[in-house]
């Protein structure tokens, strides 16, 4: 483990430059260029605010502000966007770089690190805009926002493990790519992201929290909508999941690492 991290650290220059190149490449051929990085999330914020807060006048139970529902939506959708952005790239991660992996010897996990950092950079831009929006409309949650950090870290830990697993599996079983897309859709609707657990009939409410991710997204809602620090004990299933997934990822990597390039 520490050996792998050491090798990745030795390739930090390559990783960082690759992140920069991919970031610039994404909007390189467009006329507006870097403006798109901001325009996309800006459009989303405007739509949610105007439609839900002004047109539909949607209100959340126990929330006073007219912005509450749009904040509720964004506080779930933005972190989920990070999650799905990362995972949807996973199946093609190694396959796309087959020619590089076949010709030059370097730690394969560097490609995972590059994907992770790329998703994080995008998220950072979007999340900063969201912060500005919160400040502008006077809904900044205050100190409880610090609680976002452990939630995000936990989410990234799970996400990265899933990426490693899917990226390796898809080399051997190409069915993994379409399965991932289906899985992400189920994940989106089975996790309380655009709805809250309290909207679900009491009889079924407990089932929602069988999903370890529910506690994480419930946590984001607590922080941004109500300014509360989430309950830490509720996150235990998610932490267990993270441990299990990273163990599986590590096992798969050590078992199949040698075979991977043969199948590309």
């Amino acid at each position, binding site marked *: 483990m520490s050996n792998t991290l050491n090798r990745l650290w030795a390739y930090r220059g*390559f990783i960082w430059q690759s992140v920069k190149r991919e970031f610039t*490449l994404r909007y390189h051929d467009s006329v507006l260029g870097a403006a798109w990085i901001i325009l996309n999330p800006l459009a989303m914020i405007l739509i949610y605010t105007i439609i839900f807060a002004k047109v539909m006048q949607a209100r959340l139970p126990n929330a006073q502000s007219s912005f509450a529902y749009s904040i509720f939506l964004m506080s779930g959708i933005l972190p989920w966007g990070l999650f799905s952005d990362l995972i949807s790239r996973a199946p093609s991660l190694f396959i796309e770089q087959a020619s590089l992996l076949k010709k*030059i010897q370097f730690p394969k996990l560097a490609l995972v690190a590059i994907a992770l950092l790329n998703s994080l950079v995008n998220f950072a831009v979007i999340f900063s805009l969201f912060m500005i929006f919160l400040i502008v409309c006077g809904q900044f949650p205050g100190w409880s926002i610090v609680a976002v950090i452990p939630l995000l870290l936990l989410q990234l830990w799970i996400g990265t493990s899933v990426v490693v697993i899917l990226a390796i599996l898809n080399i051997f079983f190409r069915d993994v790519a379409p399965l991932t897309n289906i899985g992400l859709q189920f994940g989106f609707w089975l996790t309380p992201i655009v709805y809250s657990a309290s909207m679900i009939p009491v009889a079924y409410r407990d089932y929602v929290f069988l999903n370890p991710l529910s506690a994480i997204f419930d946590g984001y809602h607590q922080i941004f909508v109500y300014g509360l620090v989430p309950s830490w004990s509720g996150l235990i299933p998610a932490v267990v999941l993270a441990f299990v997934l990273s163990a599986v990822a590590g096992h798969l990597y050590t078992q199949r690492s*040698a075979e991977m390039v043969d199948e590309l």
Partner: protein
Amino acid sequence: MNAIIVQGLGKAYKQYGSKWARLREWLSPTSRSRHHLHWVLRDISFEVPKGQSLGIIGINGAGKSTLLKMLTGTTQPTAGSIVIDGQVAALLELGMGFHPDFTGRQNAYMSGQLLGLTIDQIDQLMPEIEAFAGIGGYIDQPVRIYSSGMQVRLAFSIATAVRPDILIVDEALSVGDIEFQHRSFDRIRRYQAMGTTLLFVSHDKQLITSICDRAILLDGGKVAFAGDPEAVMDYYNAMLSEDAKPVISQTLDQEGKIQTQSGSGEVQLLQVRLLDEHQLPVELVKVGQLVQIQLLTSCKEDIDSLVAGFMIKDRLGQVIFGTNTFHHQSQLHNLKAGQSCRFSFSLPLNMGPGSYSISIALHADDQHISKNYLWQDRAFLFTVVSANEPVFVGSHSLPTTVQVTLV
């Protein structure tokens, strides 16, 4: 001191009966394997002392590329061990895995970093890389619009920007044009002289004999022969001619080039051979060596007359020499269907080193324009290598005596 030690090296790929077999193998709790191993390399052992050059030859599919991939570490061996002492730069299968959407410059930085260089070092080397690649403004264009020659130019320039301890080149350079080939071999020779260990894969026999200290011949995944490059080449020659097939298929096999064949077809060309002094078939000859070009023909119909001729062309298709039996007063007359004829042309090959082809013509009179039975280009390919004669340049070897007197 050895730069590379390979012991008992083997590589096998897993082959599964069906797509489900792998899934079953992975999921089943019993560890019963559902694949069989397909060995592409087995029991390979050799050593390369520091500063030496090893040539690796063999027909397509002999396992050359797999061996190089294991040496660079991109593929893991199934059996055996590899010990490498020094930093390796490799050019495998045309290039360095460039990203098609990035520019040549961005790719240069990426590959450079993967070779272990820092940004500052690459900044310093970049003008040199650009100059050596010689692709002008294309350096700032995405690699997807590059020709394969341009990719190789850039890849070679990056891989050799800093002298590596060990340089591995996999036929890539044959894609570059002559000018670039010359510059890159100059660089390779200079690095060799400075102590770089070289591993060189090629079908080009002349290159192997001129650059390498030793060579190994791979055949069917094993080392068939190892030793002095010239001896290995002779062995390779013998191995190839062992199964002397009909002319056409043989030439197609060797280089995959299409040969032009024309004619009315009354006479068939059964065999073209190049024989040395001992009447043994050869493909590699020394400057000035006495050889025999031997043709075997067969008449399908009755014909009035038959003249056989040959023409030797160089790499660029320029005619070096040609003649026929008419001009040597050996025209044949009144041949019946089914008659076979053997023609032997003996001559010393006083030509410069290089690869040459022989074209064959079978016709009725002094030239093929009147009545052409058969014309076949590239009917036979051979290579001339320099022997022990004094060094010379040019396409002809003109025996020279020298007299120097102080006056």
